[in-house]
């Protein structure tokens, strides 16, 4: 990881709002779901940035916004010097040579009517990079890289287990030698014993090919293991961003603290000594506007200022960003 270089991918105040419509014939906007509400971060070459948060906090929408599958409402997403949010048509299509994705559900993300060879070879075919013979060779090579038997080429997805399917999805993402791979909950649907296989594979591939990951998961222990830096999201915003060890050792935002304390550790000796911060209530809906901090309604350390003003994400220690009045000296 080289931080002196300029970032490979840079997000500035990205917002994705979905209109809520009502009315039978004449649709009227009656409000907005603020799925992503001002997210900024940089991704450097060769690093893994973890994105964690509970369901509905906007992790996947952020990923889709980067991939331009949901066009951002406002803000900028730059891949080196290219502004992705302005791209249309062919130039946009070309960025997928550099930007690829692995999805959560290995059952839904592979076309059941295509063979493994067709699935993995499709990106190569779309960009007309190799003739059919060379493509076959490349697909065999890719299958071998992800630990599958190249003879499986003509089989269909239903013949594979969940872990093997996820390997097929990884092979497809690697087909074009991308620079950034976005992993959207790649191991959440897998069993514990298979999960470790896939995490190790993802790490080996990164060592070998040097690409950057944006690793999205709700499981903080998996994210901590694989990431260099971790960003914690709550209600469409990043509330804390820091190197993986720092976020575990000295979490600053009350939400990060609660999230960490809520994760059970598989060791009864450690578990009996831990103090659990139990948050009250549920995550409020993203369709409302709050005058103050979004977390104020559940925060155990709420102050008066939290109801009035919105904290900004600011650097509280070198490389450690948090958006909370507790650590911003107010």
């Amino acid at each position, binding site marked *: 990881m080289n931080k002196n270089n300029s970032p490979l991918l840079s997000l500035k105040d990205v917002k994705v709002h979905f209109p809520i419509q009502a009315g039978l014939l004449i649709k009227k906007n009656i409000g907005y779901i603020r799925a992503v509400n001002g997210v900024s971060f940089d991704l450097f070459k060769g690093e893994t940035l973890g994105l964690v948060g*509970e*369901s509905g906090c906007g992790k996947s929408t952020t990923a889709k916004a980067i991939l331009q599958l949901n066009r951002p409402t406002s803000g900028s997403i730059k891949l080196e010097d290219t502004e992705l949010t302005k791209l249309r048509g062919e130039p946009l299509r070309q960025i997928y040579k550099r930007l690829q994705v692995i999805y959560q559900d290995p059952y839904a993300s592979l076309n059941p009517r295509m063979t493994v060879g067709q699935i993995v070879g499709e990106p190569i075919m779309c960009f007309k990079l190799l003739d059919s013979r060379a493509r076959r060779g490349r697909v065999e090579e890719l299958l071998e890289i992800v630990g599958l038997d190249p003879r499986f080429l003509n089989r269909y997805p239903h013949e594979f*287990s969940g*872990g093997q399917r996820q390997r097929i999805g990884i092979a497809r993402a690697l087909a074009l030698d991308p620079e950034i791979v976005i992993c959207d909950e790649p191991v959440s649907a897998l*069993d*514990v*014993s*298979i*999960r*470790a*296989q896939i*995490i*190790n594979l993802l*790490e080996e591939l990164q060592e070998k090919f040097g690409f950057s990951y944006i690793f999205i998961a*709700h*499981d*903080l*222990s*998996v994210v*901590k*293991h*694989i990431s260099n830096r971790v960003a914690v999201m709550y209600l469409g915003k990043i509330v804390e961003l820091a190197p993986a060890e720092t976020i*575990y050792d000295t979490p600053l935002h009350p939400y990060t603290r*609660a*999230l*960490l*304390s*809520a*994760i*059970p*550790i*598989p*060791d*009864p*000796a*450690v*578990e*009996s000594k831990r103090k*659990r911060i*139990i*948050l009250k209530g*549920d*995550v409020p809906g993203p369709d409302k506007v709050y005058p103050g901090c979004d977390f104020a309604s559940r925060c155990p350390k709420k102050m008066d200022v939290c109801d009035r003003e919105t904290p900004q994400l600011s650097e509280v220690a070198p490389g450690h960003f948090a958006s909370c009045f507790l650590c911003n000296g107010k």
Partner: protein
Amino acid sequence: MTEPILSIKNLQTQFHTTDGVVRAVDGISFDLDPGTTLGIVGESGCGKSVTHMSFLGLIPQPPGKIAGGEAMFKGRNLIGMAKSELRKIRGNEIAVIFQDPMTSLNPFLKISRQMTEGLEIHKGFSHKDALAKAVALLDSVGIPSPDKRINDYPHQFSGGMRQRVMIAMALSCSPSILIADEPTTALDVTIQAQILDLLKKLQSETGAAIMLITHDLGVVAGMTEKIIVMYAGKIVEKADTSSLFSRPLHPYTFALLKSLPRLDAREKEKLYSIAGLPPDLIHNPKGCKFNPRCAFATGKCFEEEPELVEVGPGRRVACWIDIEKGGAR
């Protein structure tokens, strides 16, 4: 020693399919002590849910078949009991909280109707009394303004709230056994912490025995006194919680614990991974079912299936190898 409240002996459940017989639960035995929490851990398809569904008569027959075994509850065998008798126990003395709070509540009925049903049938409450009791139960599981929420439909509750409703419903007839089948798997971590906390609190108040079924070793670590580890329809290890985690004796438990990324890990090291896949339960490997994936397997493991034997006080393991000494047991 206290008498166990539930005693399972050599339970076998099979499913007859066109491809062959699936031995989903293949001869398991265990006891549940009153007032304690027993954890059942394993991966998907290892038979953890089929176990409780078998003795509660929730397995559709056919294709399912309880091929043998007994489940003694308060001196009565639940296996082979008449349906009408079993119905008096189920939901009354033994209650279940299912994994998915979205699908285990009826979307067409108000919470009030679903919560009072058990009380009226099992305890003979009048509708009015049952309603009052239901409101009190919702209050005890921490649902704000329960007298209003009782008239809501399930979709008006969030996932965590729905699971609270399920828990309130399960507790309505004060069961002596509460079976929690992956109660927090569908929930977010902060909500999971709330629900686990609630289960612990309610157990100390009601004294019910809990059978906690989960694939998450982290959840059982803080919740249980004893743990059963299942693999491919068999119990491979049985121990009290602290010794299972500090000294796992079966290679599968050992590997499972090592393959978990831990939040409190100091150094970043490669995760230990278990090669291969669980068997498909129709074509079981010869000998020990774990042998194709086991790092310790030797000659005997491929020939004979090990029995679950006692290896220390309260510890049982089904393995030919002593993984601590590295030789035959």
